[in-house]
């Protein structure tokens, strides 16, 4: 798949659009690999297998986050808590070439052998926008009912919530820099919403 993906034109819902904002920009990040992982958090074998597959892929050291609303973020990939038995593995765009083989749906799925898990490639189900601005929090607050200050008071937090009508997964490096993951078909709507929100801060 890694090779194939080079051979043909691909695109993201927003075609990596960007606009300048005060102190940063709003942009769509390049495509990455995203896997939905379901399994039993209470099962040590499952956690071990997950750790192994990541180590093998070269994204070792990322623990599966067991606390709600947290993310294990590494330089090459991150694992988000999505539910009590659900996680999302997302690679960084620049690690995509190396990781898309060892972390492909089938490669990961085989790591769990007979366990009751689901590994589903959702790379294209979502896209990720990056919001960088000194007003990022204000921009988000225009459409987000979540108390971002409290939820993101600590490092390593993430949250699923809504921006307007779009269901999103948020994580952030700093109060100014946020990543917003959203379903492909809502990307255009979300873009318009953020652009509009940014226009009045």
């Amino acid at each position, binding site marked *: *798949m890694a090779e*194939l*993906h080079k*051979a*043909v*034109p*691909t*695109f*993201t*819902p927003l075609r990596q659009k960007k606009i300048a904002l005060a102190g940063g920009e709003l942009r769509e990040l390049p*495509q990455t690999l995203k896997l*939905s992982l*379901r399994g039993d958090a209470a099962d040590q074998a499952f956690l071990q297998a997950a750790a192994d597959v990541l180590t093998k892929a070269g994204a070792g050291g990322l623990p599966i986050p067991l606390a709600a609303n947290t993310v294990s973020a590494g330089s090459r990939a991150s694992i988000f808590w999505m539910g009590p038995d659900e996680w999302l593995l997302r690679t960084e765009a620049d690690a995509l070439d190396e990781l898309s083989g060892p972390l492909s749906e089938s490669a990961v799925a085989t790591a769990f052998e007979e366990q*009751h*898990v*689901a590994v*589903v*490639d*959702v*790379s*294209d*189900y*979502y896209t990720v926008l990056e919001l960088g601005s000194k007003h990022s929090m*204000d921009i988000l*607050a*225009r*459409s*987000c*009912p*979540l*108390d971002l*200050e*409290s939820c993101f008071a600590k490092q390593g937090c993430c949250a699923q919530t809504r921006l*307007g*009508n*779009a269901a999103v997964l948020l994580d952030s490096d700093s109060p100014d820099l946020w990543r917003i993951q959203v*379903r*492909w*078909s*809502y990307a*255009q*709507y979300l873009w*318009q*919403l953020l652009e*509009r*929100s940014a*226009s*009045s801060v």
Partner: protein
Amino acid sequence: MNQHLSDKSGKTELRLAKGNGVDTGVAVSFTYDGVSYQGVKGDTLASALIANGVRLVGRSFKYHRPRGIFTAGPEEPNALVQLGEGARTEPNTRATQVELFDGLVAHSQNCFPSVKYDIGAVNSLVSRFLPAGFYYKTFMWPASMWMTYEKFIRRAAGLGKSPQQQDPDKYEQLHAHCEVLVVGAGPSGLAAAKSAAASGKRIILMDEQSEMGGSLLWNGATIEGKPGVEWARQQVAELKAMPNVRVVARCTVTSYLDHNFIAAAERISDHLPLSEQERAPIRQRFWKIRAAQVVVAAGSIERPLLFADNDRPGVMLSAAVRTYINRYAVLPAQEMVVFCNNDSAYATALDAKRAGAAVTVVDLRSSEVVNASAAATLVRDAGVEILAGCAIAGINGKQQIRSVIVQHLSGDKRSLSGEPREISCQVVAVSGGWNPTVHLHSQARGKLEFNNDLQAFVAAGNVSASDEIALMNPHLMSGACNGEFDIAACLADGWSKGLQAAGSSADSSSDSSEANAGGITASAAEADGLCSKVAALWTVPTTHEIGQGSRKHFHDLQNDVTVADIHLAAREGYQSVEHLKRYTTTGMGTDQGKTSNVVALAVMAELRGTGIPEVGTTTFRPPYTPVTFGAVAGQYTGELFLQERTTAMQPWHVANGAVFEDVGDWKRPWYFPRGDEDMHAAVQRECLMVRQSVGLLDASTLGKIDIRGRDSAEFLNMIYTNAWLKLAPGKCRYGLMLNEHGMVFDDGVTTCIAPNHYHMTTTTGGAARVMGWLEEWLQTEWPEKQVYCTSVTEQWAVTAVNGPNARKLLSKVTDVPLDNEQFPHMSYMSATVAGVPARIFRISFTGELSYEINVPARYGLHVWESLVEAGDEYDVCVYGTEAMHVLRAEKGFIIVGQDTDGTVTPYDLGMDWIVNNTKADFLGKRSLSRSDTSKPDRRQLVGILTDEPETVLPEGAHLVSAVLEKPPMPTEGHITSSYFSPNAERSIAMALVTRGLSRKGEKVTAQLMDGRTVSATIVDPVFIDAKGEHLNG
């Protein structure tokens, strides 16, 4: 007459040198009713009009009586104007809250041709025949005339005019979270914000006025040795400098909703000159706040007195007069009478006197009470005559007060006596006491109790710790709105409520108010007496019995409700407050009775011979003051009203002229007209080309769910009506889902990708519903089942390749064998298509040879374009949803939601074959055997062929069992789908018909609304290729 009053600098005879809230050196020009005037910076429209001597500003709702400015705040019932023009016009705007800006244009409303000469005022002449509720008693004859009467009634009502153009301004919502929200920035709110802010927690302070300070802007209090205004400004500056505090002016807290959800409307550009309004990115912001605690320091609202002709222009609330003098530097009149039943109005008398007016006080209370009042003494010493034990018996002057008649009150206060005395004046400043602004507390379902000293409702003091409402909507009342009117006490109350709200306990060891007030010392202005010595006299007698002469006692100025109306309501049995309100419409105007409600209750209590608390209040509902729809909708209008979802192939569709159809949130290509084809031509062509050669459909919007786990097959077996345990990997199966009522609610093809791994498809509109349905059963009913579902709708872009040349086309771009043996109908392969990994499902919704190609969405456009290109040699046709509908109907395939409607079982669809009754159970199964659901004469889905092949029945047309001359005619079913089929070369239709399945071959008649009848035959709903041979290519 008015223009001469103002010169270019905005100075007028009534303009004073200095006010706390205005800069008298900066002129601002505006027009009112076409006349230009000058005001000054900081004015409201109301203060500028008063400064210009304009007293008549509106006509009342019902009698069209002349009305003037009555208040200086949000409680204004009278001075409603049509603000602005064209697209920015805005009806019913309170002049008392409109900040003046250069170029402001306002008009009076509810009057024709002008506010001075208003034809509607004839109502006033016949007013004795128009008491409360008169329309319930008349306009009934003849019955047919009501619609005509109604037209005139409607025209007379309604106040201002709606804009007729699209609003050019934008709005937005903003979410906010805080530990303490302080509502109101008077002394109490400022103190609360200060003490709470010290905790470092997040504090929001909101006030609806342009400047913070509340009563300090006009009441002359001294705090910490400084004028109150200065103290307030300093507090605001200090609060603004704190990183944990948000200070928001021009922001009305409108709604106190459950779980401490509070909404507020901030006016951002309304006060700016037009050119700046046009440039402002947004006009108003709607705050949606979650606060852990709320301190409500919203102050209090003065009440009027109910005396004869108390609605004449020039009658004003006493504190409003004071506000105009001290804050806006406007003397409302050269000669004034202050009319009161409590001490708080004496400060008004003193301030007016000092500002140069001739003032007389008329106090309803006896001389003994008045003589004992320090405030009264001060005022008397300043040379103001005080007429104690007296009342205003009437007013001379219609469009403007010329004088008042004063008489002595009798001992029982029910009548007047003695020589009437006429006092010349242009303004009557009234005070009937004060009502704490309990609106937000009441919205939060807090309880009220009646305070006899104040003769007003205040928030109930004793709330038990287990009071659910208090636990859910925690808030503290502070200052005047807590019934506290002394300035020092207000500060102390605010300070301690701030601490309490922030969770930092007040210094309980010391109970001196100074310590609790954080050491803030304060004193009220001279003569600022308290309103607590209120005389509970509600209706001031006049020269005739209430309602029996020409003089009216208004309590609700906006809706023109008088004391006589309350008497009438009581007499007729509308005695409950809620009946009183609805029968007389008291309190139902744009001011929601802020000045009138309590006095109305008081009058009703008197009539019923009970106390005011027994009468009770009506329900306080949001918003506190009206809020624009624009603000509530926020940014979610226009393109953001509702998301438009599109697929990966969207750019191609747009570039190739697709006409789109809305399917749920999705925009789907409806048809692709070529040249100047209309819809019909395009669809006919698309349908032919698909069956003759090959066509492509973007099917990406279908819902897709990835299902994995050991129990998946068993799960599917419960979800679908047919059998799923034996579906082999690589095989596809069609299924119907029923709800527990036994009715079809979705359908689709599910494929076994690998052991314990399935790919389910759903209808486009049903995707979310089905996903929810599966999760609900798994999570709540069958948690032990080992099944995981993952929505993958957008992961896969789907192209359906349909038609006899589908195989040939596809073989050009894929590496897998496509022949019937190796890749038969209803099977699946993973493959490479156009160089990308794909899942190909050989399933068909057209009855033709068909492959549905799923690729990761990023490749969707590439694969689509590759297929279009590869199809060139076969004259490939790209088709839309309409052709899809025709093509499936030609084969008799159903569309859930079109051929079914939530009342249709699989049996009704003639799909017995899909119900596996040997299964022990599946969702909805038991419902199928209920007596009514299993009865034979249900409506069943059949095909319909019109006798005239050219005639296409309208969808929704009904079939009748007998054609009668005119309705009623019993129907026996209706057309669910109907098209002209180019492949069958005739019209085809499907219908739900009573006992239809057993009536094939029978004639039926469709009765159309225009009277035509169409004769047709019931047939099997398969109109081409009955044997299904096309499937194999």
